[in-house]
């Protein structure tokens, strides 16, 4: 395998990083909203949240991607494959992030919220200033885990025509007859990216230690 081939893989890995990073960010925001909605005392809200989670958790990501990619043109929306890929990946991983956060929100000591209520916080202020920061810290290992999963799952978006790392390795393999070397190199790049996410997770955990040893 030549240096030139490896450079093509690295360039393709850039697209993988972009798709994964954007999807992870969207999923964190969306997942937070879904978990809060799921925990709502209003039955209709809770049902909507649970329905969202069970659909996007239960249908394989590959099927979701193909569904979105084929559904949007039918609805008259013409989007490039990369946007369909980000939408699919975000919606799916948001369901898992919502579950991770739901557990953290539910395990938040009630007294922390009561202290905020007594200090005059509105429900929205309690969410923003107390519940979300503490729940994020509690769920951080699981959130980082899911972020790594998102990176790996991004290899599936080639089915909607996005030429990211896996697809590039595939294309190059069929034109150079070096499948073993190319997939090994692609695997190594995924591993490096996963380690980076894991390391970022650890840095955040350390920064959010809040005086604990």
């Amino acid at each position, binding site marked *: 395998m030549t240096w030139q081939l490896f450079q093509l893989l690295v360039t393709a890995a850039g697209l993988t990083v972009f798709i994964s990073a954007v999807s992870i960010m969207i999923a964190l925001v969306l997942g937070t909203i879904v978990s809060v909605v799921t925990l709502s005392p209003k039955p209709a809200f809770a049902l909507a949240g649970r329905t969202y989670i069970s659909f996007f958790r239960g249908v394989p990501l590959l099927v979701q991607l193909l569904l979105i990619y084929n559904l949007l043109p039918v609805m008259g929306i013409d989007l490039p494959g990369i946007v369909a890929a980000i939408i699919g990946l975000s919606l799916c991983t948001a369901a898992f992030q919502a579950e991770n956060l739901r557990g953290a929100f539910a395990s938040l*000591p009630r007294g922390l919220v009561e202290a905020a209520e007594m200090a005059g916080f509105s429900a929205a202020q309690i969410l923003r200033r107390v519940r979300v920061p*503490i729940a994020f810290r509690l769920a951080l290992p699981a959130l980082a885990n899911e972020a790594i999963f998102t990176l790996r799952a991004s290899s599936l978006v080639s089915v909607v025509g996005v030429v990211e790392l896996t697809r590039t390795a595939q294309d190059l393999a069929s034109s150079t007859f070096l499948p073993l070397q190319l997939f090994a190199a692609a695997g190594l790049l995924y591993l490096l990216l996963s380690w980076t996410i894991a390391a970022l997770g650890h840095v955040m955990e350390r920064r959010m230690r809040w005086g604990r040893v």
Partner: protein
Amino acid sequence: MTAAVIVKALRKSFGATEVLRGIDLEVAAGDVTCIIGPSGSGKSTLLRCIAFLDQATDGYVFVQGEPLGFAPDASGARARLPDARVRDVRAKIGMVFQQFNLWPHRTALGNVTEALTTVRGIAPAEARERGLAQLRKVGLAAHADHFPAQLSGGQQQRVAIARALALEPQIMLFDEPTSSLDPELTGEVLNVMRALASEGMTMIVVSHEIGFAASVANRIVFLDGGKLLLNGTPKEVFGQPRHPRLEQFLETYLDRGAAILA
């Protein structure tokens, strides 16, 4: 003059269990009222209902004449007040919890200033000054940048008191403030409370510290089985002849300092 807190025919049930069976209580401004009684007598529930952290099943709470949580509507029926109204009336009350309930992601100073900036909209620099002043008052200015996890239980509770005082409440509620502290740390918290009482703060304290109740409170309320059994000055309540149920209750505290009452 309007009483600081009025509790009227308050009832509270959890499922089929009636924890408060019609409580009437008046707390005058400047009073230090200690609520004592056996476990399960409804002390904490009463305090939580006064603060509207638990919603009473029936009856009313008035804080400086204003209804908190529920009020009679035009037809005289009991109606839930809107959240904004609850927050307005609650602003007169500060509360200290058994488990401190400090926010773990904020430093001692952050805990004290959080509501000043978020709720009251005070500029950060001024909030910091006010926060430090409150921490100085409870003897913890040097610990302003410590997180709750870096403080002892007694220090955490003093920060919690500073946090409540920073909002300048008219009435302070204490829910078993020393029950999760060991005896050595209990003293530092009781000293802060004693100082607060001597400044004339209206206080309602649920406590197992009979010694504190006898020496600092000017009103003692004895609850038993969800009913207000006794309400009077420490002399009236603890003096002879004693109510037999109180006598029985105090016996369990003889080894915890209640002997001073004998």
